[in-house]
């Protein structure tokens, strides 16, 4: 397993899992990314990223209990952010904020 850093897409997917809370599965995440970020990612990429996040321990998954009549009768694989996933998200946000705060005013001009 590569380190526990969050890649850009990984972070995005992780945030979406958190946002969707109890209905976070592959296609929903894909659609959410499309709607909110206007960014087309393929289903394969989403699943692959989720798989990677699971390997790193940032998400946990289990199959949904009710068998829907759509989806060819196949259950959803629902994802949930783990504690270490939450920690990773917070860390990355803090790091960002810190870095934003220390940008000299000269660079972007006064706020």
């Amino acid at each position: 397993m590569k380190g526990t850093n969050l890649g850009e897409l990984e972070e995005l997917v992780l945030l979406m899992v958190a946002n969707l809370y109890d209905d976070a599965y592959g296609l929903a995440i894909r659609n959410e990314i499309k709607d909110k970020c206007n960014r087309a990612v393929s289903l394969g990429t989403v699943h692959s990223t989720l798989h990677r996040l699971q390997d790193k321990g940032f998400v946990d998954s289990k199959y949904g209990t009710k068998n829907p009549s759509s989806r060819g009768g196949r259950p959803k694989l629902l994802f949930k952010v783990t504690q270490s996933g939450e920690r990773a998200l917070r860390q990355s946000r803090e790091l960002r904020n810190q870095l934003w705060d220390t940008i000299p005013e000269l660079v972007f001009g006064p706020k």
Partner: protein
Amino acid sequence: MNQPNAPKWIVRLVQRLLDPSLLDAVLGDLMEEFDQNVSQVGLRKARRQFARSGLVILFQHRLRRKRVARRSIWNASMLGYHIKLSFRQIRKNFLFSAINISGVGFSMVGILLIGFYLTRELSYDHFFSDLDRIYRVIPIYHNSTNDRPMPSAPPALGPLLVNAHGGIEKSARVYISDINNVLGYEDRHFIEKRIFYADSAFLDILDFPLIVGNSETALNAPNTVILSRRHAIKYFGTVDILGKSLHFNEDRTVMVTGVVEVPENSHLQFDVLMSFSTYRVPPGYTDDLTSWRWNGFFTYVKLSGAEQQTTIEQFLTDTWMANQNRDREVTVTLQPVKDIYLGSSYVYHPYFAYHYQTGDAKALYGLIGAGVLLLTITLFNLANLSSAQLTRRFKNITISKILGSSTRSIGYQLLVEALLISFLGVLLAFVGIVIFSDPFETLIGYQLELKGQEVVPFIGIVLLAIVILASVPISVSVLKASRHSISDRAISVKSINRGLSWRSILMIFQLIVTSVLLTATLVMKDQLAFISQRNLGFEKENVIIVEMQGEILERHYERIKTGLSNNPNVTGISRSKYALNGKSGGSPLSMKSWDSSESFGVAVYESHYDFLETLSIEILDGRSFSQSFPTDSANAIILNRTAVEMLGLDVEAAVGQQVRLLDWDKTIVGVVEDFHIASLHGTVRPMAMVMPFTHSTKLLVKLSSGDVSTHISSIQEDWRALLSDVPFDFHFLDDSIQSQYEMDQRFSRLTTTFSTIAIVVALLGLFGVSGFLLQTRLKEAAIRKVLGASFGEIVLLLSKSFYFQMLLSVLISIPVSIYIMQHWLNNFAYAIDLNANSILIALLLVTTLGGATIFYQSSRIAIVNPSKNLRND
């Protein structure tokens, strides 16, 4: 419940390749997306999107099913084990393996030979360094009826091209002398027939490699000469001969400025290369080197770039039309030197048949076709044999599976076996070619030497061949194995006699190809025999031709004639400039009354008194040249029947008519029956005979019948008494006529070899396949025998389906061979009619050999004691 409208193959692929724990999640997502898409963008787009998403998912390797023992097969010890097992398998089924290996070997011999031949034919002229921008000038003469492209140009054109246009870097004329010249050093004097005269830029354009000498200056001065390596050795015994002098004809001396290597695969083949300024127009010629009419000078140009071609063609046409001092419509084109060898049929002109070499592109296509067929036969054979073989091994395979081998490992075992067999076959072919290289070289007419970069494509071809050959048994095994479950395999081979169809189709195809090849061989042999026996319109037997230098022959002709006439073995003597092997002069001929622009080309033969008599050419009307008519040497002309008809005259009314040959007025004194001055590929063309106005170089001597060698030695004695210092350089007329068919004969030899190989391969295949198929009926035969069937009944029962297939293929092959051979025969102006004989013989041969093979196999089974085959059950 799957979504019914989604593409099933994607679903199946995903099910097969995806990590099973993710399967529901992913497939569910795909289906849900599909449903969304159906309502949003329609079914078609949704299906496409489904496939796209599915494939993208499969490209994510972390989502795929994990393979566990993936690499262990290919480690070294396992490979060693596979090879060992393969050798055991080969030894166990020795007959089967031997058939397979020798089948592969035979056909590889054929394919390699074709490969060598093709490489050689395609390599012509590729050693020139600026190949992409050197061209030969091809003027196209237009007249009212046709356009005549010529490979050469008038001598006046060449000098006009030097520094005339920025696009032309270099230009050079080459003149190929068709008179006999004598070169001599000390006491070694020889008649040289392949002397080329070339402008100084010649070696800059066509850069034949010089062994010694400076290619830039070697041809600058008059009286300089470059010898080929062979001729340097012939005269001096060494190539270190710069600055040495040679006698040239009777009164001249030339200095050696270089020794050149003339590769065999060059369209120009010369022994001696002299500077153009050395050339002197022989006495009697009507034109000099400023002529626009004398078309006999090959003109080569090197352009600054290939893109200049059209510009320069236009420039050349303009230059020609502006400078020519006659009224003739001409378009000048450029032919890339790399196309000369195989692409010159459109400029083929009999006058130049011997001046540069040409190959036959059609024959090459034929050969490639034969090679492909041979390869197909071999592949079919392998497929047939290995599928028959595989059924035998099902038990073996099943047991190893039960003992824990993976399918993969069994697959590798089969792969190694197949590779080994095709490798051994190819190795066999190579060893065969190396051992029998001499007969093979005569067969293809070239040396089989491969060096430098030529080897690379060959290694590639061979490796490719091994892989292709091996892939057949592999795919057969995979196909077969996938259709049988383990229990099927363990039980028996019962399935083999059901759906025989595809195996029969392969066999039928093979037999068709074999019959066609065999028929082709026989027809070709017939045609070539027909040609060599055809009446050419003159008697070619017992005539010898003595090659002499023109001046000497002219000076001594009367003495020779009187001297040799006393010899009782000599029945006729004449002299001529050409000797009936394709070469001739050419000029326009017309009735004197015709308009000056009307004329047609005729072959011109300069021949002396008694020419017609010596060769027994039939005179239809009038007479031959005669000493009693002194004006004959200036005014008389003898025409052949074709020429007379083209003049619009009756044969009976032609004598006495006035005609114009080039610029001369002539009177027809005789009409002769058509006779062949060139090969039978072409029809008889109009020809005119006149008394020699230039040096003639060939002395024709007709011998009386009887022992030729004693006749010749007696003539040789007379010769020595008459002309002690002139070499008696002679050959037989029929030999030189026959030499025109060398290419055809080579081609026929190649076809014979290929059809032999094809027959052997096909029979090997038939032997193997029928053997294996019949093995499966051992018990059936035994039981029938116990129940009272006779030997004959069993043989018939076992073999009738084979005979039926053989009959079918023979029947199909008949129209195919007729079609193909009719096409080939169209190349000849005088061809045999396709008769039933050769086809019948070929088919009989195929059926007899095939029938014998099958009879042998089936009788072997029928004859055996039934208890031997039944006691094990």
